[in-house]
Every structure is written in C-alpha cells, then in structure tokens.
C-alpha cells in the first residue's frame, strides 16, 4: 500500500482513498476551432508512457475530492513529490 500525501488535507492518507487520473500538464489548444486535427489529436489521445519520472494527476476521491499533481517513478513506484494544480514540479527529468 502507498501512503500518499494530500496537499489539500495536509497529511498522508491510505492509497485506497485516491485515484490516478492520467498524465498531468496537458495544454489544451488555445483555439480549438482553428487548430489542426493533428494538434487536437495530440492533445486528446496522445499520452506519454515514460520509463522513469512521470507527472500525473491524482484525485483524493474519498477525502477532499480535490485533484493534485504527483511526480512518480514508474520503475520503482517511488513518489517523488506532490504539488497542487497550477504549480510547477520541482522534480523533473534531466533532458
């Protein structure tokens, strides 16, 4: 079981209170009516599947019901950090 820190409740909770909601930081095209099908398709369907650091959205489903971001290592399952929506991650993969 994971013990996950909820940045809204300010404490660690059991994993069963949370749900993963997929990749974080998806930028919606600013003008959907005039973007190309390729751009819209990239936004709607294309997701990363990295080996290593991954930024994900999670929800504290049975707690405060708020979304937040999590940086997680997909190999070791280690949770590097959690941060609120709108904030920037401090742990990022070296590029």
């Amino acid at each position, binding site marked *: 079981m994971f013990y996950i820190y909820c940045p*809204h409740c300010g*404490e660690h909770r059991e994993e069963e209170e949370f749900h993963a909601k997929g990749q974080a930081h998806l*930028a919606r095209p*600013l003008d959907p009516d005039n973007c190309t099908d390729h751009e819209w398709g990239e936004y709607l369907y294309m997701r990363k599947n990295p080996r290593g650091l991954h930024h994900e959205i999670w929800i504290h489903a049975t*707690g*405060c*019901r*708020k979304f937040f971001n999590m940086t997680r290592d997909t190999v070791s399952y280690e949770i590097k950090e959690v941060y609120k929506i*709108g904030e920037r991650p401090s742990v990022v993969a070296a590029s």
Partner: protein
Amino acid sequence: MSDIIAPTKQAAVEAASVETVALMDQLAGTDIRAESPLYHADLATVAKQGPKAGGVTLQEHKLLGHLVIRGSQDNAGFLAGARAVLGFDLPTQPLTAAEDGTLSVRWIAPDEWLVILPGREAFELENRLREAMSGHVAIVNVSGGQTVLELSGPNARAVLKKSTPYDVHDRNFPVGKVVTTVFAKSQAVIRRTGEQNWELVIRRSFADYLWLWLQDASAEFGLVIKD
C-alpha cells in the same frame, strides 16, 4: 489547466449567468411524518428492548439539516457573509470544525464546508446565507441525502479501527478533528466530538448497510442503541 482557458470565453460565461436559483423549503410541514434513512430499523424499539449496557453505544441524530457551502477562500464576500450569518469564521484550517450550540461546521475541502443544524432551521439559514454572501458561491441543502450517527463508549474506537484505514489514535485524531475517509468500504465524514465520542456523517443509500456493519463490528463489545 485553468490558466489556459481563453479570457474572452471566461467573460462570456460570467455575463450569461443569471440569478436563477430555485429555492424550496424541503420540509413538508410539522404535521407530516418524516422518515430518516434508518426508519425501517426502528431504533426506538431496539433501544427500548435491547441491552442497556455495553462497550459501544450507537445513536442516530436523525432529520437534521445538512447544508453544503462552497466558495473560494479568496472571495472576501463569501467569508464575510458566512461569518455574519454563522457568528464565527468558517474553519479554513484543513480537517477542523467549528461549533456553536446546535450549529456545527465541518471543513470538507479547501472550498467546501458541511453545516449541520436542526432540520427546521435549515431553510432559514440557507436564505440568510444567500442574502449575506456575494460572488461565486453555492449552497445546497443535502439533508435528505445523508444522516448522522454517533458512536460512543469505551470500545467505540475499536469499532472504528475495524472499519476505517485511517489512524484513529489520540496522537493523530484529537478531539475536534474532522476527516472524510473510507469507512467500511463506504465513505463517511468522521468527527471526534469527545474522548469517547465519534460522529459519522453517512450517505442515505449506505445507511442500512452501515447499520448492519456496525451491529456486526460492535457485537463482540456489546452494542447499546440509544434513541
């Protein structure tokens, strides 16, 4: 991401929003019989005929008024309106509650609070809150959707330990704390109201299941029903 929403669209949404909240007093009247979610269990009779001493005491605080208040903590008109009507500040510190007589407020999320008060006072409070609050706020009467159970007694904590993964030790769950968490695979808002007293706000649809669960979980300590 919220910061990506085009500013022009945001303005259009605000302009179109009109004050069209349909307000209704959900209480039919004092002479109409109301049934709590555990009406079928007939707790009054169980309390009369059942054991009078045991390790766990269960009581349903039925037919109370439940109001969900939502608004941003950045909205001064919202916080000031709540303070003016309630007589105290909304508890903005996570996992806390505030209480004044029969009226209690629980922190549910950074922008959500649950107010519980006597059922007959709910409609009046809702109206006063709507009057006093300004900006983007929501008040919803959810009285019919949930009920309040109180677990007490020397073994109440042991029953909680069997039911929730949350740590209910004194160190982690002092009197006054409020936690929304998993309870018997269902969900409950758990508030510690005393050294041996715990209040559970549960969903109407889960009330019967949790009643059966609590009877089973309390059997080894002896369950006393209080009316």
